[in-house]
Every structure is written in structure tokens, then in C-alpha cells.
């Protein structure tokens, strides 16, 4: 096989892996949008916040150390202990559930019946708030997240694919972490679907997604479901945060990845979980391939905008996305 083709395949494979990570963020959006009609802009910041908290707890940082030092003139930074990864993940999850409750109790409950655009703006405010709180709590420097996931290129894949090309081809270069991410994403999606299909709470969740009033009238507590959904989204954000954090460090740019999840959603449709996955893969492969083939001709760094333009062009022909429900408008 010609090397150029194999390099192309490698690009596609890496694109698929990147797409999985986009899809992870997009999943959180879809969960909340389906259940409450809220377009949660804060999803990316939630991932950032979860990752920050995880690192902070693992390293035994004192929360709000910066602020405390500024106010009281003290010099505290670390408790001086390290928490094992699993315990830290559980603690972070508890915090995310508390956050879900707080969002519902202090924000969303007061905005019931507002127009979608107002709710959207509220989540932008939430994103700013959470970003500020995250920085205040744990500091804003770039952090390394290491929860024991395998890192680096997979030698096994490289060695076993090298025979495909000529001497210039050394086998496919695939990050182990990306493979783990793909696996985790698959498990997560299966778990979510199983939860939605086979558990009592999952059924209630789908009922709420279908029709708020009908769900309310058969005795489903909307408040509980919303807290549940935000907690689930927090959980998905935590997983996405761990993956992205392990890949490129925990830093502010994580929240920009949320913006990348938006075209993914547009492609897949706002209301479809499989759509989020497929959209993520399309965007991941598309932008890597575009950068590989056309990018060098027009100056590179096309990944910044390609996803959005692709989504834009796509929407002109199919406004509800690939798997979205058909938009029916009535006067």
C-alpha cells in the first residue's frame, strides 16, 4: 500500500479518537437538553471544574488558598497529604452532585417558563461563575492530571502495523490514552442508554423529556429529575475532564473544547445520544483530514474553524441535524 494512503488512514484513526473526546463533552449537553430544554453552555466549564477539583483533591490543595492568603495574610497552600485517585474521583462526584443540586435550587428553579434564550444566557452566566470559582478554589496555573491511565504511543499497534507500508512507514501512531478514552466513551454510552431504558429513574427521565406536564401529572418529581440529570451531566463532565486533562493538562482551554462540542451537537442533533457520538466522530475525522489534505495549502491551523463551517454548511441542508427530531412549526 502506498505510504501516503497509510498516513491518511492514521490521520483518520487519530481523528476518530479526537472525535470520541468531543462526543464525551457533547453527551453532557444532550442529556440536559433532552430532559429540561436547557442548552447548557456551562458543560465545558463543568468538565474543567471537575478536572481542577480532582487534581486539587488528589494533591491535597487547600481550597481557596489564594483567597484566604490574600484576606488573612497567611501562607497556606497544601494540606500535605495525597488522596488516592479513586477516592478523589468519588469526592469530586459528590461535589458535582452538590453543584447539580445548587444549580437547580438557586438558578433553574427560578427560571422555569422563561424563554429558551434566557435559559441559555443563564448557563453562560453559570459558566463564568464556575470558571471564576474554579480558579479561586484551585488557582489558575496549568496542572498535570495523572489518575494512572496509560500514556504514550502504543508500541504494540505500531509494531504490528509497520509491515503494511514500505521502509518509511513505521506503523500507526496511536496514543494509548485515546484508546482508553474510546473504550470509556463506549462503556459510558451503553451505561447511559441502559440507565435510561431499564431503571425507574431512567424511565422517569425519558418521561420528563417527552412532556413536562404529563410527567408531572403522573407523579414524577421534576425537581428530582432535573437534579438527577444535572448530576449525570456532571458525571459525564468529570469523565471528559479526566480524559482531556490527562491528554493535555488541566487548563483554561478545556472550556473552549465545549465550544467545539457545539458543532458536534449541530451535526448530530440536539436531542440524540447516538447523534452526539456520530457527530463527534464526523467532526474529529473531518477536521483532521481537512488539516492533513487542504491545511498546508491555506496556512494550517484550520482546526480552529473547520468544525463550525462544516456544521454551518450541513445545517443549511438539514436544519435539525442528522438524528434530531424534525422541527415542526405551528403558529
Amino acid at each position: 500500500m502506498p505510504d501516503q494512503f497509510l498516513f491518511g488512514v492514521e490521520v483518520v484513526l487519530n481523528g476518530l479518537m479526537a472525535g470520541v473526546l468531543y462526543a464525551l463533552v457533547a453527551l453532557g449537553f444532550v442529556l440536559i437538553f433532552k430532559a429540561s430544554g436547557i442548552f447548557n453552555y456551562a458543560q465545558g466549564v463543568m468538565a474543567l471544574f471537575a478536572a481542577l477539583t480532582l487534581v486539587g483533591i488528589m494533591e491535597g490543595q487547600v481550597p481557596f488558598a489564594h483567597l484566604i492568603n490574600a484576606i488573612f495574610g497567611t501562607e497556606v497552600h497544601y494540606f500535605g497529604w495525597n488522596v488516592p485517585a479513586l477516592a478523589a474521583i468519588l469526592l469530586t462526584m459528590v461535589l458535582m452532585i452538590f453543584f447539580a443540586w445548587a444549580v437547580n435550587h438557586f438558578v433553574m428553579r427560578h427560571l422555569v417558563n422563561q424563554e429558551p434564550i434566557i435559559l441559555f444566557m443563564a448557563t453562560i452566566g453559570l459558566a463564568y461563575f464556575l470558571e471564576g470559582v474554579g480558579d479561586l478554589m484551585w488557582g489558575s496555573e496549568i496542572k498535570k492530571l495523572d489518575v494512572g491511565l496509560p500514556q504514550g504511543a502504543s508500541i504494540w499497534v505500531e509494531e504490528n502495523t509497520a509491515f503494511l507500508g514500505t521502509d518509511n512507514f513505521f506503523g500507526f501512531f496511536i496514543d494509548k490514552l485515546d484508546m482508553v478514552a474510546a473504550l470509556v466513551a463506549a462503556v459510558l454510552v451503553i451505561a447511559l442508554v441502559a440507565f435510561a431504558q431499564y431503571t425507574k429513574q431512567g424511565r422517569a427521565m425519558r418521561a420528563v423529556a417527552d412532556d413536562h406536564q404529563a410527567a408531572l401529572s403522573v407523579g414524577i418529581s421534576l425537581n428530582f429529575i432535573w437534579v438527577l440529570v444535572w448530576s449525570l451531566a456532571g458525571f459525564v463532565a468529570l469523565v471528559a475532564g479526566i480524559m482531556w486533562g490527562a491528554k493535555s493538562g488541566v487548563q483554561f482551554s478545556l472550556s473552549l473544547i465545549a465550544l467545539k462540542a457545539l458543532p458536534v451537537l449541530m451535526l448530530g442533533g440536539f436531542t440524540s445520544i447516538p447523534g452526539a457520538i456520530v457527530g463527534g466522530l464526523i467532526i474529529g475525522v473531518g477536521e483532521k483530514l481537512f488539516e492533513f489534505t487542504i491545511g498546508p495549502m491555506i496556512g494550517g491551523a484550520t482546526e480552529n474553524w473547520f468544525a463550525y463551517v462544516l456544521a454551518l454548511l450541513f445545517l443549511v441542508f438539514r436544519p435539525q441535524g442528522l438524528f434530531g427530531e424534525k422541527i415542526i412549526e405551528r403558529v
Partner: protein
Amino acid sequence: MFYREAGDFKTSYVDDSQTFPIAFDRYRYYFVLVVAFGIIPFIINDYWANAVMVPFLIYAIAAIGLNILTGYCGQVSLGTGGFMAVGGYACYKLMTAFPDVSIMIHLLLAGFITAGVGVLFGLPSLRIKGFYLAVATLAAQFFLVWMFNKVPWFYNYSASGQISAPERFVFGVPVTGPNVEAWAKYMVCLVFVTGCAWLARNLTRGTIGRSWMAIRDMDIAAEIIGVNPLKAKLTAFAVSSFFIGIAGALLFAVYLGAVEVGEAYGINKSFLVLFMIIIGGLGSIFGAFAGAAFMVLLPVLLKNVLVGGLGWDTALATHFEFVIVGALIIIFLIAEPHGLAQLWKLAKEKLRLWPFPH
């Protein structure tokens, strides 16, 4: 007692359809104009011009622009930063290509060029609605910023990739470049703000503004009663981008002087202007001013209190600012989804009955 219609008889149609039907409002408006044009230029200093007045005026123009699109026509846009970049770079190219033409004309032309680009990116709005459109406008934001970064023609092949404004004069007074006086900057921005606000106010209460509002309230119904959605949406994009382009050009030429596109016109600018119109009030020209004033003054105030007053370091103050801005947006949306403009309106209603409310 003073704020009422009673006794103020309208004897002609012109009188009847004036912008400020209540005498007190009219006088207040003239008073603001007199203070803005006649008093502030003589007392303004560098700090007040650079930290408060000039950014306030420039963002007020941008907020009016976005308010026309989002507040009046109902099309949410997250591409404001990108369109401001078009204005800034158009202004730069015009200034360097035609050095003899007045900068005022360049600023206006930059607005028209941005209007053209805005219409182009507005075309999808005919098919795409709501959130999908908001995300689609992100394409404009990222693509435009990328383009100004990567195509050297736009920054005249300068080594740093930055653009910097050459010195230009209006009536012999420098308004761009290194030797600008505070009052000259302020006056240029003020002239444009006054013009834009006047234009926007009169557009929004005329036929075209009404067709925008009809589209906002329910596009299908508007179409049935004979509003042409193509025309209404595209004019909204054009007019909005025109204002935003002027704001971007002023930001570059008059306020910053030298600009790096990702920094000055990034996605943060889009959100900043969006916050201005939410906090100020969607669908209100006054709201655009109030929101711009709020969002410009808040960081200055916080910085003075936290860094100057309490002695915190600036990084901490910046984080705190994020928390406060975020919390304020949420509080505003819960307490008053229609923003400062609505509070202003309520105050006026109360004032009308004051001091005998029954």
C-alpha cells in the same frame, strides 16, 4: 410632578410621533447631549478617556448593533467579535491604501464592508433558527479571526502580524496614532455614538424596525401577514454588522492603536457584547447604553476596590471578577429578565404618578 404628558399638547403629526413625547424626557436628552459635547471634552483626562469613556462609547455602538440583531430581530449571534475584526481590518486596509481620504469616511466605509460580510454570514439564518443559528454564527467568529491571522495581505505583510494605526487628522487634530489627546479620541467616538444611536432609534420605530420585531415575535405569523423574512433578516444582519463594524474600527484605530486579532477580537468580545445587551435589556437602545456602561464600569470598579483598596493581586481580582460577572448575570436574569432598560421603564412609570399614586 414634572414627568407627565398632561398640559403638553401635540398640535401636529410631527409633534405626535416624536421620539421623546414627554417634555421632561426631551429636556433630559438635550441636557445629556450638552454635557457630553460641551462639558466632558474640556474636563476629560487620559485615565478617564482610556479606562471609562472611550471603551464605553465604542461598546455602546457594538451593543446597539447586536441589540438590533438579537433584541429587535431575535437572531442570536455569537459572531460579534469576528464582525468587529472585519471593521478593524477594513479600516486598516483603507487607511493604508488611501492615506489622503479622511479617517471619518474610512470608519464609515469599514461599517459598510462589515455590513456586506454580515449579510453573507446572515444568509444561513433563512434556514437555521434559534440555537442552531447561534452556533452557526460561531463559524463566522472563528473563521474570520483565523483568516485575519493567516492571510498576510490583511496585515500588509508586517512581521509581527499586528496592525497598527497610522497617524490621521480630523480638522488638523490628530485622532489616531501616538499623539492623540484624550478629548480628541472621546469626540470621535462620541460623534459616531450619537449618529448611530439616532439612526438606530429611528430605524427601529419605522417600517423596517417593525418588520424586525414581527420576525422576532413569530416568524411564520410575520410571513403570513406579509413581512418578507428574507428582507427583514438580511437587513437586520446588515444594519447590525454596520454598527458592529464601526465599533470594531473605532476600537482598533482610536482606542487601541495596535491590534492582534485573536486578542482584541476573540470570542470573549462576542460574549462581552452579548452580556451588555442582556444586562442592559434586549430590544432597547437605552439598554445598549446601560449595559455597556455597566460592563465597562464593573471591572474598573472591582479593580479599584480589590487591587487598589484591599491590596489583592490582579490575578485574584480577575478571578473574582469572573465570579461576580457570572453571578450578576444570573441574578439579573432571575430578578429582571428584561434588564436595566425595564427597571428604567418602571421607574418612569412610577415617576409619572409621583407624588400622588392613587
